[in-house]
Each structure stands twice: as structure tokens, then as C-alpha cells.
């Protein structure tokens, strides 16, 4: 079988050739386009010079077969990660590669190599073992060739990898969107894993009852953020909720799916309260049910549900009064930084240039709770952190988060958290992590 027509285009189309040439010009790294059999389809001028590094190395006992194997291994990895991968081609020399695909099938790849991350003089003896394989006669040529290898450091190498992926994207038919999807899934999974890691830091054991409690608390909070339109924070919280659900139902996909759907329904309710048209939400709910049936694994479920959340928030934004919104945001930021002062409605309303009654109305309609309740919630959240992390007496914590005295603090805490501060502190103290069977 000969080279795929997709790659042969390169020779016939000067525009594509120019793009490949300009890659080397901007990054300084030599470039090759290689077909699935490992044959060169196109290469930079660098490889035409007789004394180029790779040629000397190969003539000195390093067969080209090894290079080909290294390339193939790298391209397999880049397909699995969904991005251009960077690695070593032979010992200390670096390579970047990106796959060229025809409707999701690999037809060849771009290899940007060789380059070095440090100057040759900084290479350590064990990084130069390949030198031993070069015949003594060739040593001189080799010493001349080594300084010709471009040195591309951290930032530059990263950029080179990004551009190479774009280039491969253009060469592919229709493009590399299939790999982008892979990347997206990987990134989301990474974010969820990070959230679980943070959860573990928060609560050492993550037992089912504490997880359930946590997920209720997070649900309430995300609803507030959605109402508020704080997209970035809402999304972060959503990842955390997914992390909690995954920790609970990791090995039971059906239960996981049901809980994710349940969560979506709760969020749509918040969206309706925040002003999204009811028809729109009903249409979405219909989608949940029809589309979710065809989702068969956890990774696709996560990516699907994150997309839906985005749509849900888009719906809210379209119906929002932008001005109220900014004022509210400003007021909440003020509370966030002044929670330990004795705050009053009049004072906060003044901060955002509104009358107390107008401000109170906006708060109630946008947040769904009163200003007093919101301030209490912020203070209790801060107190929870202090209770967990610091050994301060409860009376002092009450004062530090803005309550006038301990008894009032305890009363509010009990109302919000359903337990006293003391019990909360006892429950959140770290436990040993050894497993007992």
C-alpha cells in the first residue's frame, strides 16, 4: 500500500508545504511528515544536509529502525492522550509528534525533532551514552553536528507542541476533533480526580454519611451560585459534586446515572427560579431522559452532564437583568471581605448605591434567601474552616467570624448545620488511615 492521498497532497499543494516550512522557521525545530509505514513524505532542509546529526548517528551503529520504533510508540501515545506528545527520541534528544488522521483513522504523523532542552555543554555523562556508539572516525563530524541541533527551552517547547497539533489538525480530514474529544474527557477526568483529592484532604475517611451530608451542602450552594450567575464557581462546584457522586457510586453505574439525573433536575428547578423559560427547561428535561439512555460509561456521562450544565446556565443568562446582577455580585463580594464586621442591610445597600428596601427585594428575588440568612451562611462557612483547622476556643471563633457572642453563634450554627459547633469539630477531627479487615 502506498502513502495515503491525504499526505501526498503535501507535495502537490505549495500552501501546505509553506506551512510546514514556516513551522521550522518559527520554532527552529526540524520537521518531518511520515506515513503509516514509517516512510518520509516530506522533510525540512535540515535532513538534506549530509552531516546532519541523525544521519551520523545512524551510520555509527544506531539503525533507523530504532528511530522508527520510537516514533511509532510516541504517536500511539499522542492518539491516546488526544494531544501532541513530547518525549525523548534517542537518549537526550527530544521529539514532539502529532498524528494525521482521516476520519479518525491514523494515516501518518508529523515529527518535530531533533531538539534539546539544554545546551549540549550542560549534558551529563550518562545522557551522552549514545556517543559511544559513534565510530571514532565519525567523532569529529559528530562534534560538529551536535551544536547544530536547536535548543528549545520550556515555554518554546510547549508552544512548538501546540502549533504542531494545529498543523496536524489542518492536514487531517475533516480535522482532529475526535482527538480533541479524547482530550476533553481526559481533562474533565483529571479535574474530577483533583476534586476527590481535595475532598480527601478535607475529610480523611470520606465515609458514606459524611459524603451524603457534603453533597446536600454543595447542592444548596451550587443553587445559590447558579441563581447568582457565578459561572466559574458554579462549574467548580459542579465538578466537586460529580466527584462526590463518583466516590459514592463508582462501581454502580446505574445508581451513578440516576443520581446525576437527580442533580440535573434540582439544577433545572434553580434555573426556573432564576428566570429561565419553563418551556426551555421542559425541553431540556426531555433531553436528559432520551439522551441519558444511550450513555454507557462514566466518562461520557460526565462530559455530557457538564455540557448540559453550560446550556442551563446559558438559559439563565439570557433572561437576566444584567444591572441587578452586578450590584448583587458587588454586595456579595463586600460581605465576603467584611463578614467579621457587624454588617447591616443599610450599610451594604449603601455600598451598591441602592435603598434598603430595593436592595432587600433584589437579594430575595435573586438569591432566594434573605440577606440575614446569607450573611449567617457566610459566617458559618468561615467558622467551619476555623473549627477544623485551628485549635481556637469556640467563643473566640464566634467573635472572629462576626457573631456578637458564643450563644448566638451556637444557635445559628445549630440551625444551619443541624449540630453544635463542638460536635462538628469532634466529627471532623482526623482519623487514622490504616485499613482493618
Amino acid at each position, binding site marked *: 500500500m502506498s502513502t495515503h492521498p491525504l499526505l501526498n497532497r503535501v507535495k502537490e499543494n505549495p500552501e501546505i508545504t509553506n506551512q510546514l516550512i514556516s513551522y521550522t522557521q518559527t520554532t527552529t525545530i526540524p520537521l518531518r511528515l511520515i506515513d503509516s509505514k514509517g516512510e518520509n513524505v516530506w522533510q525540512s532542509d535540515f535532513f538534506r544536509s549530509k552531516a546532519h546529526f541523525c544521519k551520523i548517528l545512524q551510520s555509527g551503529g544506531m539503525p533507523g529502525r530504532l528511530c522508527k520504533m520510537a516514533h511509532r510508540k510516541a504517536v500511539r501515545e499522542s492518539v491516546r492522550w488526544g494531544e501532541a506528545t*513530547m518525549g525523548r527520541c534517542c537518549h537526550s534528544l527530544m521529539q514532539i509528534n502529532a498524528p494525521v488522521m482521516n476520519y479518525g483513522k491514523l494515516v501518518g504523523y508529523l515529527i518535530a525533532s531533533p531538539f534539546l*532542552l539544554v545546551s549540549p555543554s550542560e549534558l*551529563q555523562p550518562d545522557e551522552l551514552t549514545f556517543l559511544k556508539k559513534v565510530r571514532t572516525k565519525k567523532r569529529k563530524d559528530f562534534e560538529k553536528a551536535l551544536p547544530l541541533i536547536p535548543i528549545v527551552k*520550556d515555554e518554546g*517547547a510547549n508552544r512548538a507542541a501546540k502549533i504542531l497539533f494545529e498543523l496536524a489538525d489542518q492536514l487531517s480530514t475533516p480535522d482532529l476533533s475526535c482527538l480533541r474529544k479524547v482530550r476533553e474527557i481526559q481533562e474533565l477526568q483529571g479535574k474530577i480526580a483533583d476534586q476527590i483529592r481535595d475532598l480527601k484532604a478535607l475529610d480523611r475517611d470520606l*465515609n458514606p454519611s459524611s459524603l451524603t451530608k457534603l453533597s446536600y451542602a454543595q447542592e444548596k450552594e451550587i443553587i445559590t451560585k447558579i441563581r447568582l450567575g457565578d459561572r466559574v464557581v458554579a462549574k467548580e462546584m459542579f465538578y466537586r459534586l460529580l466527584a462526590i457522586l463518583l466516590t459514592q457510586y463508582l462501581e454502580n453505574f446505574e445508581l451513578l446515572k440516576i443520581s446525576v439525573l437527580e442533580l440535573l433536575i434540582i439544577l433545572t428547578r434553580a434555573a426556573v427560579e432564576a428566570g429561565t423559560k419553563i418551556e426551555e427547561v421542559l425541553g431540556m428535561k426531555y433531553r436528559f431522559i432520551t439522551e441519558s439512555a444511550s450513555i454507557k*460509561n462514566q466518562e461520557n456521562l460526565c462530559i455530557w452532564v457538564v455540557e448540559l450544565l453550560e446550556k442551563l446556565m446559558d438559559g439563565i443568562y439570557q433572561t437576566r437583568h444584567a444591572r441587578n446582577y452586578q450590584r448583587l455580585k458587588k454586595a456579595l463580594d463586600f460581605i465576603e471581605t467584611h463578614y467579621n464586621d457587624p454588617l447591616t442591610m443599610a450599610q451594604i445597600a449603601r455600598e451598591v448605591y441602592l435603598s434598603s428596601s430595593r436592595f432587600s427585594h433584589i437579594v430575595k428575588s435573586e438569591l432566594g434567601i434573605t440577606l440575614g440568612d446569607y450573611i449567617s451562611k457566610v459566617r458559618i462557612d468561615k467558622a467551619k474552616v476555623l473549627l477544623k483547622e485551628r485549635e481556637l476556643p469556640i467563643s473566640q471563633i464566634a467573635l472572629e467570624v462576626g457573631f456578637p457572642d458564643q450563644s448566638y453563634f451556637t444557635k445559628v450554627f445549630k440551625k444551619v448545620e443541624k449540630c453544635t459547633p463542638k460536635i462538628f469539630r469532634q466529627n471532623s477531627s482526623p482519623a487514622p488511615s490504616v485499613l482493618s479487615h
Partner: protein
Amino acid sequence: MIYQEKKINPIKILPTIGEAEVEMKLVQLQQAVALRNCKVVKELTEGLVKEEVDLFKILNHGLIPGMLENSERFRRGEFFIPELLMSSRALKIGLNILRPLIQERKRGVLGRIVIGTVKFDLHDIGKNLVIILLEGNGFEIIDLGVDVPPEKFIKAVEKNGAQILAMSSLLTSTMSWMRSTIELLHASGMDGLVKTMVGGAPVTPIFAKNIGADAYCREATSAPAMAKRILGIREDEHTSFTK
């Protein structure tokens, strides 16, 4: 921690140095790894070895924390592959100085551990750090790399007569392969002879218990202690390599 490229003065070799100075040099070593400065790493490691500082201390308080710092930055998206490669290069330079000395001074092997990242998972940064730590503590490691299917784990345990099977997973979607591997280990009748150890960002203690793992490692640095614990070895055994 300060990340600016700081100039670290070349060390002066004194006949004996105080504890405070050793601590300071360990911090400098940590910074040098974090700043990916191979030359300084080499100088400092050699200097500390010359001062007869405990090799394990150099590893655990100097080289490893520097690398951990950078892998954390990689996780946060502040660093990319080139920075990470350069940090592991700096780490390797220090390790190359310590390794022969550790080999020379250790009294036998504490145990043999087969380690790998589970099937469909390609993450290996954490696992590689665990390997360095375990090796530094006197364990013999058989590294199976990434994307390791259950059968391969079991075969390697059998072939090498390992006492511990250690698995890492960085994705919730691949965690269930830990269960499959432990189940296969049970089915092969080797579960009495081999202990299992699991770890990774999404792995929780409850999950580890549910799948029947013998130990759960919260972070890379807890791996050596955990390995010793499940094998019933005293905590301080082989942690000191001074003459």
C-alpha cells in the same frame, strides 16, 4: 516557597558542619531540584554525602520534596512536560550519586515489590516517585510501567516472587481495574503470600477497603512506611544508611 531563579552560593567544604547547616543545605537542594538546576543539585548532593549526612535524609528531605513540588505545579497546570522532564533530570543527577552508596551500605533487601499503573491509565509521575522512595528505603522494585492489565501484574508477581503488589490509578474510570487485579490475585491462590497496596488521587480509603487492598497510601511519601507496615517490618529498619 520562592520560585524565582535564585543564585545559590557554591558550598564550602568545612571539616564538620552543624545540624542547622545541614538543614539549610537540604532546603537548598530541594530548591535546586525545583529550579531544575542540575549543576547545583550535583554540588550539593556531593557535599552532603561528603559530610556523611544520612543518605535517606538527603533523598527524603532534599531531592524528593523538590520533585514533589514540581509535580504539584504540573498538576495545577503551571508547568508542562518540558519543565517536568528537566526536574526529573535534576533529580536523576542526585539519585545517581546516592544510588551506588545505598547499594553498598544496605543490608539485604527488605522486600520485592511489583508496581504499575492500572490498565487504560497512562499516568506515571506519582508512581515513579513512589518507586524512588521505595528503592531508597531498601525495597527491590519491578516496575511494569503504565497501562498494565491484571494478568501482567499477576504474572510478574509470580515470576519474581514479590511480597507486595502495588497499583496506582489517577482516573476514576480506571480504578475498577484495581479490583479486577486483586480478584485475579485471589483466584490465582497467591493472596496469602502477596500483600496489595493501592494509591492515586481519586482512590479513597473506603474504596481500597472495599476492593480488599491491604494498604492504602494517602500520598507518595507514605508508601515506604505502609509497605513496611504490611510486611511487619520495623519502621526504622533500613531508613538509615549512615556508616
